[in-house]
């Protein structure tokens, strides 16, 4: 299925969980927050939340700022 991660289209297997997506992205295990279709998916839900086609996923982290 196709979905969008940080604005970029990606092909992933159907029914992928947020946790599995982060794994596939080689994203750090800690220090990231995930939003799917503008709703936050809490860390505790990463393993159970299944993604759907056309989902818009944002994976964010802290960077330097003032």
């Amino acid at each position, binding site marked *: 299925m196709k979905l969008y991660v940080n604005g970029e289209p990606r092909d992933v297997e159907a029914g992928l969980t947020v946790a599995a997506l982060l794994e596939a992205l080689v994203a*750090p295990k800690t220090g990231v927050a995930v939003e799917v279709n503008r709703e936050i998916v809490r860390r505790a839900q990463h393993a159970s939340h299944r993604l759907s086609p056309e989902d818009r996923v944002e994976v964010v982290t*802290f960077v*330097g*700022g003032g």
Partner: protein
Amino acid sequence: MSDTQLTIAGKRFDSRLLIGTGKYPTLELMKQCHEASGAQIVTLAVRRLDLSAKGEASMMHWIDRERMTLLPNTAGCYTAEDAIRTCRLAEELGMSKWVKLEVLGDERTLFPDVEETLKAARVLVKEGFTVLPYTTDDPITARKLQDLGCAAVMPLAAPIGSGLGIRNPHNLALIREIATVPVIVDAGVGTASDAAIALELGCDAVLMNTAIALAKDPLRMAGAMRKAVEAGRDAFLSGRIPRKAYANASSPLDGLIG
């Protein structure tokens, strides 16, 4: 000399300097600057994870979590909606509800959009966030933010990153007069004397990033800012002499030789 600690939303701090994490030549130098500055509150931005930099060590690796209270910002947000969304993400990231609310009006001046800032503050306070809003040096806006339940007000000294210093000391003094929450001068500080002036005016703290990060010697500047904030605070508590138009001799006029 006795002084009360800076208290924001019931949390006490020994330092009256808040420091950023942007624009440092290296993260290692940033960490050293944080230490030299004595700051106990550190700002951060929330951005998309760089998916090409696989599994890289995060910014958090360079922040002393024992000492620092995290203050994620909403920099780069131009609407209340985006700022609120960013704060919710920041909470998920930092496990804390402290946020520096910053809703900008345009890219050239980076001046706050007061209307959107007020709108976002109202929602965030209701959601239980501890909101420290970046705002114009306008006493009326500061009062409105305070009345909404913001934990501090953070008027600008000058545009972000400009280094122009305290452009309107009278407005900052007016804000200090009416505010019952801490007044933190945020943005525009260029050098140590600017920070000292903010504290001399009675403001409770100063937040800065560029003035330290882009100084030729950031580590030395971090130390200078620490001293400036302490000196400014002491000068304020000491009670300065009034300004007079004419001279007033320091040495006695009696007993001059004939």
